[in-house]
């Protein structure tokens, strides 16, 4: 009794009553043995627990524990053998049921026996190092019943047969299966594994190996995956219903290996239904299924990713090198965006936004966009198109979305400085012709570029915006000051452009009409009067003019033309016929520009305010031009030869490249000097890596060019070669 006691008491040695009767043990055991028999025969109701317990208790106390224990083993074994033969006798389907019933009986009996022999369990067994009663009962069941030669294989075969039956659609008694497998588990995990699980896995592997062969021969990829997924779920469900939870990983492993891993390559590359087909057909469900199944096996996702990547690269490469497509830059970029959208959607909805897939997509885009050296130009043209007209009437959010997409393409570009160059040109045209749809969108894009590439990248672009604003103020000031003196003459609007901020073009002067010249002169005086020390040059090639013209039948039109075209048209104020030579002499417009502007005045249907002789598409030096009296148009305002940005012609493209190369030189030099200033001494390879790293956000410098820049810096004594090691450079402060 575990009561707290305060009183000190003396304990003398206690002697149990000595048992005189030599047959005591035999008698007591007989009572217990009888009880055990009764228990197994479901006859326990008459037994007195107390009596049995007391007898077992006394036997242990009187050192007959050993006899009790061995007696128990013998009696139990005897009963189990009986049970065993009754199970063996069970026919066909009853076998499992009989086994299950007997197992339940045995368990109950075992519980009762353990209860009445509890004292032995408590005292004798630990000190004698025997197996506790319950465990003993299980072990005996295992050895006598389960491992009996007639039951062991039969049990296994029955179980596998039932599972096989369920796989082929039969309904089986899952509760019974559950009980039997639970029995195996209760007998110890090793019994479950050795007597059932191992063979179960093997037979499953065989089954699925065969089935997968059959499937792959008869199904297309999507269908196969559907079946594989169903099988996998079935197995998982089976485990949850009547197998050990630990088996789930093992059996799914088997299914994965047989159904997926061994056929992975074939599935992905399956003709007419493989991965590429799914991508082409936007089969999100199939793709998602493939992803979730392949994710289960090692290198499954790598395979999908690799195939997808190479497909993107291949199709991307086709797209960017398809000469037909390249004719329309806007369409070209739109296609890039569509492809990107498509894959974003696939990755989002089927590949659970897997980061590695996104990275693969990005690197593929980066790869093929840069295959075409005109990508930067086209992207800028796309933006130009959008900002000119594409974004009209589009909500602010949508504008943002489009701009963000463009920025995403921009990020893939290696030659960001080329983009900048084109962007500057296109922006200049937009600003000067006043064609931009939304100032906010323009600025928003600039901000995006700034966050992406830093202040340096956009400072000039921002300068252009500032110039526009200042010019507006200047014009207001001009008209406020001298507006009264101007009378009826033409209205002038001047944009003063800071040199350096704007794309420089060779200045092509032309002879402006006298009316214009006088007001230009007035403006020059006004401007230089307020800003001393500046120089103004007229960029006649960038301007526009609105002309009012009256045609043969008195119909009036307002013509929106370029400065050059205005100069030409003004010549016709005095005469109706001029030859090409005469125009060229009078206007002094560079030949190529003049031809282009005459073409747009005389050769475009619906806008032909001039008439050309002879009629042809091209302008020849011998042509003569007439004022077209019969010109008609539905519109009051007629736009002629709008300066829409066009993709550059080959020579222009070459020229731009050249300029970009030139612009890169100082940047590379600056980077070299920055690095050397910090490091003082560095070897050639390291300089190249560092420079590449520094300039990466703008372009990928060519190592040969870097080497040339280093040589030039050495010549100019910024650097010197180390005297000992020729590969080493030193910075000269």
């Amino acid at each position, binding site marked *: 009794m*575990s009561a707290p006691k*305060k009183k000190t*008491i003396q304990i003398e040695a206690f002697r149990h009553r000595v048992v005189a009767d030599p047959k005591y043990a035999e008698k007591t055991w007989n009572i217990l043995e009888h009880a055990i028999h009764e228990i197994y025969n479901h006859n326990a109701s008459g037994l007195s*627990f107390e009596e049995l317990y007391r007898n077992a208790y006394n036997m242990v106390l009187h050192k007959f524990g050993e006899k009790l224990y061995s007696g128990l083993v013998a009696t139990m074994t005897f009963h189990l053998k009986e049970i065993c033969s009754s199970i063996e006798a069970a026919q066909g389907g009853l076998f499992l049921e009989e086994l299950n019933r007997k197992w339940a009986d045995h368990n109950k009996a075992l519980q009762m026996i353990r209860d*009445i022999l509890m*004292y032995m369990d408590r005292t004798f067994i630990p000190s004698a190092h025997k197996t506790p009663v319950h465990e003993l009962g299980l072990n005996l069941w295992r050895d006598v019943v389960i491992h009996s030669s007639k039951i062991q294989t039969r049990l296994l075969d029955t179980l596998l047969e039932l599972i096989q039956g369920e796989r082929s659609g039969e309904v089986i008694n899952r509760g019974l299966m559950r009980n039997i497998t639970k029995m195996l588990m209760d007998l110890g995990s090793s019994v479950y594994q050795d007597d059932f699980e191992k063979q179960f896995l093997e037979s499953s592997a065989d089954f699925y190996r065969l089935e997968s062969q059959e499937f792959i021969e008869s199904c297309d990829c999507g269908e196969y995956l559907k079946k594989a997924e169903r099988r996998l779920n079935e197995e998982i469900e089976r485990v949850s219903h009547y197998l050990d939870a630990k088996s789930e990983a093992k059996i799914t492993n088997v299914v994965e290996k047989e159904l997926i891993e061994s056929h992975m390559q074939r599935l992905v590359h399956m003709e007419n239904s493989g991965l590429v087909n799914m991508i082409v057909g936007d089969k999100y469900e199939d793709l998602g299924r493939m992803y979730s199944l392949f994710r289960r096996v090692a290198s499954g996702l790598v395979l999908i990713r690799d195939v997808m990547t190479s497909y993107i690269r291949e199709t991307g490469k086709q797209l960017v090198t398809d000469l037909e497509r390249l004719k329309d830059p806007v369409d070209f970029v739109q296609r890039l965006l569509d492809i990107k959208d498509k894959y974003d959607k696939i990755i989002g909805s089927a590949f659970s936004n897997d980061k590695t897939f996104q990275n693969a997509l990005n690197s593929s885009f980066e790869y093929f966009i840069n295959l075409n050296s005109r990508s930067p130009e086209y992207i800028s043209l796309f933006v130009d198109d959008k900002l000119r007209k594409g974004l009209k009437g589009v909500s602010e959010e949508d504008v943002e979305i489009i701009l963000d997409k463009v920025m995403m393409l921009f990020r893939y570009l290696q030659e960001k400085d080329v983009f900048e160059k084109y962007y500057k040109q296109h922006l200049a045209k937009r600003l000067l012709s006043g064609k931009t749809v939304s100032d906010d969108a323009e600025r928003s894009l600039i901000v995006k570029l700034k966050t992406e590439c830093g202040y340096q990248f956009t400072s000039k672009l921002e300068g252009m915006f500032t110039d526009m604003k200042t010019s507006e103020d200047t014009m207001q000031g001009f008209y406020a000051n001298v507006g009264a003196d101007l009378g009826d003459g033409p209205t002038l609007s001047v944009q003063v452009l800071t040199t350096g901020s704007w794309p420089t073009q060779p200045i092509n002067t032309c002879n402006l009409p006298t009316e214009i010249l006088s007001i230009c002169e007035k403006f020059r005086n006004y401007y230089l009067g307020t800003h001393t020390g500046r120089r103004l040059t007229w960029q006649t090639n960038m301007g526009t003019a609105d002309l009012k013209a009256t045609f043969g039948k008195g119909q009036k039109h307002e013509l929106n033309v370029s400065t050059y075209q205005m100069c030409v048209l003004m010549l016709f104020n005095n005469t109706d016929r001029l030859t090409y030579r005469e125009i060229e002499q009078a206007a002094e417009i560079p030949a190529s520009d003049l031809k282009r502007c005459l073409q747009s005045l005389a050769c475009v249907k619906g806008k032909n305010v001039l008439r050309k002789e002879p009629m042809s598409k091209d302008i020849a030096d011998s042509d003569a031009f007439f004022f077209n009296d019969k010109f008609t148009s539905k519109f009051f305002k007629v736009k002629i030869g709008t300066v829409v940005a066009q993709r550059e012609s080959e020579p222009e493209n070459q020229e731009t490249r050249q300029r970009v190369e030139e612009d890169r030189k100082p940047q590379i030099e600056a980077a070299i000097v920055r690095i050397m200033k910090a490091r003082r001494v560095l070897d050639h390879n390291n300089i190249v890596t560092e420079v590449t790293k520094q300039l990466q956000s703008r372009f990928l410098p060519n190592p040969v060019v870097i080497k040339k820049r280093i040589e030039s810096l050495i010549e100019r004594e910024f650097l010197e070669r180390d005297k000992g090691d020729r590969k080493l450079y030193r910075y000269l402060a």
Partner: protein
Amino acid sequence: MRKEDTVKLISAEGFEFVIDKEAAMVSQTIRNMLTSPGSFAETEHGEVTFPEISTVILEKICQYFYWSLQYARGKETEFPIEPELTLELMMAANYLHT
């Protein structure tokens, strides 16, 4: 008190103690007697005879059962044991696995 919630403990001399099952089950042995899956006589009749435990000791044991329940609930009082009972009590305790 309902009959199912009580149990009758009978001493060697035939004295009957009717106590709560909850209290009786302080003894692991009695607990097994009353809960064992087979229908032993004790489970069916709700009474247990102890031919080797005298009335005095069984009374003490019943007192102990109730005391033990209270002790387990946090009421820490002393449980008085007369020295002359100690030995027999301990033997009974061993038997009852208390």
